[in-house]
């Protein structure tokens, strides 16, 4: 199937997070404190216009996808919640950790600090799109071989970022790898092995 049109049926997770947002919005507008936990979302729905949704068509991992999205939806949330691609992770949601790294037309960017509606016609690659069927991408293989992770939370961002780095600079020195991978934090501090993995992936290419 090449063309997918989805009206983004609300997942349980999306529903919960949006109800929370609506509740918070109501509180900010000075809503009374007597409502039960479920009530504010209903009250908010009555009080404000339903959010405008806009269509956006983009190519994700080689497949054309069309979705309708609230303009407030980040690219990260659209990928994770609407398209079910949970490879990009939400670490900080403010541009500080790199866990949400994806490729935009082959260039690495952060998907958490940008809105999905801005990506009409764009080509996005997430970590899910790197392998060729069962054949891992050379950077993925290098991360496995060099044990470039511990808990794995940052790993999809690290790998996607390393793919972007090698496209920008095919033969980085060790010092350059450290500098140019500094946008990806690792709470487990697997840095030595991450650097080794990127080094070996770069060598494998040259």
């Amino acid at each position: 199937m090449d063309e997918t049109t989805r009206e983004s049926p609300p997942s349980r997770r999306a529903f919960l997070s949006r109800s929370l947002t609506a509740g918070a919005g109501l509180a900010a507008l000075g809503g009374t404190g007597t409502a039960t936990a479920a009530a504010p979302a209903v009250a908010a729905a009555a009080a404000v216009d339903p959010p405008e949704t806009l269509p956006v068509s983009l190519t994700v991992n080689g497949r054309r996808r069309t979705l309708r999205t609230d303009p407030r939806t980040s690219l990260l949330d659209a990928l994770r919640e609407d398209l079910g691609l949970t490879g990009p992770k939400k670490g900080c949601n403010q541009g500080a950790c790199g866990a949400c790294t994806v490729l935009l037309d082959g260039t690495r960017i952060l998907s958490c600090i940008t809105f999905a509606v801005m990506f009409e016609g764009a080509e996005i690659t997430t970590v899910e799109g790197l392998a060729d069927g069962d054949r891992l991408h050379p950077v993925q293989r290098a991360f496995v071989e060099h044990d470039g992770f511990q808990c794995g939370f940052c790993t999809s961002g690290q790998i996607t970022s390393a793919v972007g780095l090698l496209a920008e600079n095919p033969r980085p020195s060790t010092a350059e790898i450290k500098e140019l991978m500094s946008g990806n934090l690792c709470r487990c501090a697997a840095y030595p092995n991450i650097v080794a993995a990127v080094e070996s992936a770069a060598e494998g290419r040259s």
Partner: protein
Amino acid sequence: MRPFHYTRAGDVAEALRILSQDEGAALIAGGTDLVTLMRDGISGPSHLVDVNGLGLDEVRWLPGGGVRLGAMCRNAANDSRLRRAYPVLSEALRSGASPQIRNRASVGGNLLQQTRCTYFRLPEFACNRRNAGSGCSALQGDSHAQAIFGASSQCVAVHPSDFSVALQALDAVVLTEGTRGRRRIPVDQFFRLPGDTPQVTTELRRDELIVGVELPDSPFAARSHYVKFRERASYAFALVSAAVAVEVRSGTVRSARVALGGVAAKPWRSQAAEEALVGARLNEETIAAAGDAAARGAQPQRHNAYKVELVRRVVRQALSELG
């Protein structure tokens, strides 16, 4: 986040029309600063005008010398001619944020990024810059990252951009277009000090946008350098930084520029440091004198006296590394 209308502007005229018709409209470029501000409730535009479709992404060398960078050139701009002609500019860009952010962040957005003052970024604190007249929490709070030059009793925040510091050292001009025409605003005038109106941070009018910046041809640009001191080796804002540019002929400094980052609400030009250099030989002694001159007149807050010494050292390092 407050709901908003979204328009992908097809040309500058359309963007300007929306800006002038809708008071709540704001431009979005890379979104790397604005999205976080909106999510945190610091900024709440009712209409976002996406400028990514405007073009404005050219690096254009001017026939009479100098170069123009379009407002939508990304912070990853890696042009070898630019690197040679204006080393300080490339170095400053490369020292900012992370590769992912630089790939998306734009020239215009970089100039207009908001301060990283914690109190500005947390709506539960009073902040004159965010809510005029509400007070400044930094005066009683943590002032380690705040300004040592040009602050006022209303606001002590600093401008966080590295790129702008290089622009200041290069005598760059901000090019704007508005419903009332085009303007060329020298960087030094583009940014405002807080004074009694800390909420007004630049000269840009509501119905204007930045179309680019222009770097003139100058005798000092080719020998220029950026040094940034921060809390970790990479991916952190400057505590203090220095952009220096020097023209030396027959062993004597003919002209010089010294600009500081992390010390004021704007990229801070130190004419005193420049004067210490001009007419002298570029040796250890003059370099030390320039560092001292750059720090003179600093007015540290409670927790940032360390920045005064840092200014001396960062300026010294930048000039020494010029070779």
